[in-house]
């Protein structure tokens, strides 16, 4: 799994390099990417699921910012 983390890092950097070459969209071409369902950050309901998983599993969720402290010890 350590190898998969390194692979993901290299894929991420390659993806960033490739995508930064993509051409800009005109405002009228942004109909789909600006749709609220396309938002990268999740809804409050999804954030609560990240919170539950962060407690019930040993791992952190990278895009799920911790909103408040708490022991999660129950």
């Amino acid at each position, binding site marked *: 799994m350590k190898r998969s983390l390194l692979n993901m890092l290299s894929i991420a950097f390659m993806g960033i390099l490739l995508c930064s070459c*993509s051409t800009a969209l005109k405002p009228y071409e942004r109909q789909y990417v600006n749709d609220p369902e396309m938002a990268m950050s999740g809804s409050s309901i999804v954030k609560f699921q990240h919170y539950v998983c962060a407690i019930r599993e040993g791992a952190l969720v990278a895009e799920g910012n911790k909103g408040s402290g708490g*022991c999660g010890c129950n």
Partner: protein
Amino acid sequence: MLFSKAQKKEAPAFRVNETEVELLYNHYIQDGDNSAVTGGEGTERLIVYGPTFNYKKEFGKNGLDFQFGVDVISSASTDNIDNIMSSASRVDTRTYSNLHYTEHFEKNKLSINIGLGASIESDYFSIGKYIGASKVSKNDMQTYSAQLQIFNDDLRWGRLDGGFLASPQFLIYPVELRFQEWYDEYERDSYNLNLGFTQVVDQRNSIGVFGILSLQKGLLATPFHRIFFSDDTEAVEQFPNKRHKMALSLKWNKFTGGGIIFKNTLGTYIDDFGILGLTLDHETAIKLSPKWTLLPSFRFYVQKESKYFEPLGVHSPNETYYTSDYDLSSFRSTRFGLGWRHWPAARKNKGLHIFSLQYFLYHRSDGLTAHTVSTSFNFKTKRARARKKKQ
């Protein structure tokens, strides 16, 4: 002449003031047989009733975000801190609040945000501090974000039980282990650095890379988690007083034909307790009409256990660090979700903006099962205001 005069006349400029109120309720039920309170064997039955109030206001260049919530926790395992035999569930309350302020710099497409937060339970008090920034590229194709979070926690018991906001008294150990102090500290500090990058790839695809680096210091064990050693003696959980964590997520959102949106996440996690995690997460949003969206989802997670974990009766008393908390064991978990989102006032500037109802079923390979029902009522008010002319 007339034409040039008309050209000089400036069009009135408006700013939109937006207020958003969200009423959220999460109902969480869990059951399993590996409670860390009873040393790795025993009920994990838990019910959480969680109402939350979110308030967001955008006024001109500034934004304010306020959150207040309460989790009422009915936990059979916590009851076993005092009594090994199961009895009626103990009820605890976690109250939390956050306030964030954002300043937008339109010229540079830059936002700076700062925040403060706090949460309190009978055996826990946490203060959170946040500072961050996000930047959108000139052509609106990329966003970059960074946020530093600092949490200063105190694990002493007694703030809610000896009268509201009473002085904390001591760490709470299992009833039969209160003859000595097991730790020489009661504070825990966490420093999280969140980094994010998103990129619009084309008209229907966008990707994101998110990372978190985390350092925890202080008392990282839970004082009332029991350990039963191989020679039948007993102690409480012990961990090193430092933990480094790192997580990375790749996200890919795709708007396909027919109003179907696929949101995919691949995540990895590693820390120096020896835990490795891999997550595959998929959400689909099916737009049945402009006002109705169906939300099926699936998540798969696999974890390699911490080097400090062993089941009940396996740890040797000669070890320095030990836990029988199954959250840190090796397992696989799956989560299925289904819900819908309703946009009753998509084109109006006032009233109920979004209503969501979602259900999640979580299952872990060690037998733990959890159900969550979440509902959200989101109200929005938009008002356009003419900008003040500079003198």
